[in-house]
């Protein structure tokens, strides 16, 4: 939901960090691009608290991805407490995936009806989000009716298939009406035809991004993060307290988010073959991610079963010190929390790396996509940078200046 442009009001800045982009333009190119992210060290507020309280508070701290934050902390605590082996993960994991998918789809929906119109100079349509929000909000109570879905050890999972099917049908209808104006495009030809039709804000933005001077603009050549395992993130975060300030995978920056998830999707493969590694590819990946979400969720619903909260009597004995890492997926990409519990079961240390840390790193996808990119003039540099920022979608405000 990041907003590129002049959105640095005190309210937004006090609501979190900010990304600042400084461009130097010379000789028809962006000669230098400096990307700096000011990151709120919010996890510091969790240190000193008992594990259960930390897991309960984490979702309250973050406005855009509270469910993913809560689940990542819960998973980290489960790992640190040694609960994971006793949990009915086969039941809870699909349900947890649905919780984060619903949150991610709502976030994508915000992009489509609020941020994308703004990029086109059209009025944002937040009221259009109400139906989507009603559908995504129905998912958690249809899984964990007691409201304990983010509990450490898992809540009381009692899936209501009819309610879930109804919610998924409303999500699909919403996408068809508000985003695609029909079925989603399946390849580069369909994408071009859909863009030319211009029936929705998304299609009109596609038309702009498919313009010959923009479609391949912003190619960054940064590889996908790919890594999903808690073990990898545990080693990365546990071994470096400042990992999030300069996240790296195999000694290189990495990209996370829709393109990482959908790189093999037919629309993305086809758009990449035609337009290369730039704005059109990133946008195609966002469309594919959105279109696939209800379909993937429907597949997950068929795998659901009932489960009870894990019996923690064993763990409620003498508390043991330990570390654990939890990973969760958000609209913007992969989120990981690492924490250390002391001998009393309180958090002695807490670290996290969020998608914006990866995509807006000083040498990350945005910085590399901007550096050297062709621009006719300084004003175009800002406008194009704004499009690339929107395609990478920071979770904080973003300011772009030409120096």
């Amino acid at each position, binding site marked *: *939901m990041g*907003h590129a442009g002049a*959105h640095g*009001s*005190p*309210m*937004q800045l*006090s*609501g*979190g*960090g900010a990304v600042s982009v400084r461009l130097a333009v010379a000789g028809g190119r962006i000669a230098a691009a400096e990307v700096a992210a000011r*990151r*709120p*060290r*919010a996890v*510091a*507020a969790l240190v000193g608290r008992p594990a259960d309280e930390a897991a309960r*508070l984490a979702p*309250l*701290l*973050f*406005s*855009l991805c*509270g469910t993913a934050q809560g689940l990542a902390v819960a998973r980290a605590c489960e790992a640190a407490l040694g609960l994971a082996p006793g949990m009915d993960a086969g039941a809870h994991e699909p349900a947890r995936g649905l919780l984060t998918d619903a949150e991610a789809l709502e976030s994508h929906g915000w992009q489509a009806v*609020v941020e994308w119109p703004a990029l086109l100079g059209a009025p944002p349509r*937040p*009221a259009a*989000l*109400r139906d989507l*929000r009603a559908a995504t909000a129905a998912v958690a109570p249809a899984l964990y009716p007691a409201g304990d879905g983010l509990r450490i050890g898992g809540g009381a999972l009692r899936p209501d298939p009819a309610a879930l099917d109804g919610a998924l049908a409303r999500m699909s209808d919403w996408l068809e009406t508000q985003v695609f104006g029909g079925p989603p495009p399946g390849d580069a030809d369909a994408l071009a035809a859909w863009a030319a039709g211009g029936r929705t804000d998304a299609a009109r933005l596609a038309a702009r991004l498919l313009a010959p001077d923009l479609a391949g603009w912003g190619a960054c050549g940064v590889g996908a993060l790919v890594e999903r395992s808690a073990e990898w993130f545990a080693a990365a975060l546990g071994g470096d307290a400042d990992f999030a300030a300069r996240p790296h995978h195999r000694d290189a920056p990495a990209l996370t988010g829709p393109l990482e998830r959908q790189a093999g999707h037919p629309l993305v493969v086809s758009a990449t073959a035609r337009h290369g590694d730039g704005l059109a590819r990133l946008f195609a990946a966002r469309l594919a991610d959105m279109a696939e979400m209800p379909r993937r969720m429907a597949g997950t619903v068929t795998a659901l079963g009932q489960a009870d909260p894990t019996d923690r009597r064993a763990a409620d004995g003498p508390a043991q010190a330990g570390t654990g890492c939890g990973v969760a997926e958000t609209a913007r990409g992969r989120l990981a929390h690492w924490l250390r519990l002391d001998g009393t079961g309180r958090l002695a240390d807490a670290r996290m790396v*969020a998608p*914006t*840390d990866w995509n807006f790193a000083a040498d990350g996808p945005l910085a590399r996509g901007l550096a050297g990119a062709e621009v006719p003039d300084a004003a175009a540099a800002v406008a194009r940078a704004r499009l690339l920022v929107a395609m990478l979608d920071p*979770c*904080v*405000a973003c300011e772009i200046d030409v120096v």
Partner: protein
Amino acid sequence: MCLAVPALVTALLPDDRATVSLGGVSSTCSLELVEGVAVGDYVIVHVGYALSRLDAEEAERTLALLAELPADAA
């Protein structure tokens, strides 16, 4: 990353908007996405839109939590 800082609704304005106070700084936001907001309620605001309404206890707990953050954290 984007911290959910509860903002206190201080006045309701025409066109489904409100004046909110966030750490003493007054601003306005849209209420299009939340229903039944009254003066004295807390809301989470993101880029000019109230995203959700919090009950007072939840809001106070979050504010207390945020107040404990190190000075360079937000």
